[in-house]
């Protein structure tokens, strides 16, 4: 089992207010062929963490410190030219909104093909064949390559996004809430598809979600984020069955269960603030002083 990606002490602040820590001292680990889930509410910094891996942060934000080691190289130090060779080739990314992340005036086949031409230099017949095989892998008939995004359903568009992101067989796939906008049944299909692709291509997958139900279905490791910090991380079974941090427990409690046995409990933030001092040391991530 090899270490594919490790984020060490990542801190992100807005340029206008450097004292405000949007992401504070986040460290996490991902192995090839495994799935790590980042779970948290909106505003917890989970998407920022994911975007920073490929240096896609908005220019108003800056990464203050931290290393992002991908296959033994700190990719946060690379310039744009070097990053372009990695984006889409070694690291694929799927975004949340399949409606807005595809270009409406280009056929889906063309959009999948772009990556292949840029990174692998495929052209003509070989390109067409590869696009067809990619579409079939994600469960879309190959003749849909000429369709435009508006002719496809939400689930199909998300499949197209997946086909694009796996086109160059990346070592790492980042999926930022890929199923949040979808129906439950379509969500189940997409999760199965991602899991199968991950196993077959031995990819590492970084999966971002706010839903612990999805985590239970897909993750090997879980990282729980709250207000920009990692409050707990570990093996999926141990986190789900024996959560250490009160926030993890609270977040688990607000997921409705299908059996209807456990009452719904919304998160009591006031209590969490008070409980912050009494959080068990084992669940608190080691916080080291920030470099000057």
């Amino acid at each position, binding site marked *: 089992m090899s270490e594919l990606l490790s984020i060490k002490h990542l801190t992100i602040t807005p340029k206008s207010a450097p004292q405000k820590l949007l992401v504070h001292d986040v460290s996490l680990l991902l192995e090839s062929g495994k799935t790590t889930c980042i779970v948290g509410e909106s505003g917890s910094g989970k998407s920022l963490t994911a975007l920073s891996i490929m240096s896609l942060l908005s220019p108003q934000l800056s990464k203050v410190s931290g290393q992002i080691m991908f296959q033994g190289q700190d990719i946060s130090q690379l310039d744009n030219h070097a990053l372009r060779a990695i984006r889409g080739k070694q690291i694929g990314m799927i975004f949340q909104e399949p409606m807005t992340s595809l270009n409406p005036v280009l056929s889906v086949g063309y959009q999948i093909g772009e990556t292949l031409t840029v990174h692998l230099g495929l052209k003509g017949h070989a390109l067409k064949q590869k696009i067809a095989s990619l579409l079939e892998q994600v469960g879309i008939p190959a003749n849909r390559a000429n369709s435009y995004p508006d002719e496809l359903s939400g689930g199909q568009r998300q499949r197209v996004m997946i086909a694009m992101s796996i086109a160059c067989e990346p070592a790492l796939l980042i999926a930022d809430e890929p199923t949040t906008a979808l129906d439950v*049944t379509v969500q189940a299909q997409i999760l199965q598809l991602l899991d199968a692709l991950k196993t077959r291509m031995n990819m590492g997958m970084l999966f971002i979600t706010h*839903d612990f139900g999805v985590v239970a*279905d897909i993750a090997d490791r879980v990282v729980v984020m709250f207000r920009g910090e990692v409050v707990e991380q570990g093996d999926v079974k141990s986190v789900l069955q024996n959560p250490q941090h009160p926030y993890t427990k609270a977040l688990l409690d607000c997921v409705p269960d299908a059996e209807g046995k456990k009452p719904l409990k919304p998160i009591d933030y006031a209590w969490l603030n008070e409980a912050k001092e009494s959080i068990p040391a084992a669940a608190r991530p080691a916080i080291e002083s920030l470099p000057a």
Partner: protein
Amino acid sequence: MSDLILTAKHLVKTFSQRGGRFGLGSSQVKALDDVSIALRTGTTLAIVGESGSGKSTLARCLLQLQALDSGEVFFQGKNLAKLSSIDLRSMRKHLQMIFQDPFASLNPRMRIGEIVGEGLLIHDMGSRTEQQAKVIQMLKRVGLSEADMQKYPHEFSGGQRQRIGIARALVLQPKVVVCDEPVSALDVSIQAQILLLLKELQAEMALSYIFISHDLRVVRHIADDVVVMHQGKVVEQGSVLDIYQSPTQDYTRNLLQAIPGRKHAAELLAEQ
């Protein structure tokens, strides 16, 4: 068995769709195909199905926001389709709706006070000061403050906007509220808050809900009865317990299997 407050019988709604070359052809889509449902007073009836199953069309047709091809909707014994437009308008204060998208369903140019108070103004309920007091009371009840009346929708988060949508629907003290996927655009933690708020308000104000959702985990917590829809038809209906514990149709079973985290829950049970 409590009384039925809203019943729908044999609803049919067909949309024609342009198709073919240059949009010259047309095809018919049956969004509602002989749908009958009944809502008991003070309970929640959930309508579940995938997108395209006709559940939102059903909601709109129940409230007469969309004309039916055929079928009847009875509210407290009155056939809504037979009412004159004036009578129907005054009836609307008893029938309210909470919408899915908290970002699209609030007018960005209106202040929260105006948005919530507009229904009171239209139905001419009470003097200006009484209306004002009602709006403040309702906003406080859903967890917002009096100062929020002066703000615009963009100043609120998704969960707060959904609270505004709830206040707007409930300030008229309706009898039936149709909730069209009210929590599907929200985070799980916010979702739990809103679901509990809806439940509390139901008990306080004796509301009857029609609750539309594709998430069977949510439905399990809020519904008393469930209607499962697929391609415009009712596939199965019954009490929550019956549907979840002994579904008779394959389609319902598929929906239940798609619930995320089910496998894990089953493993947990096996270990215990």
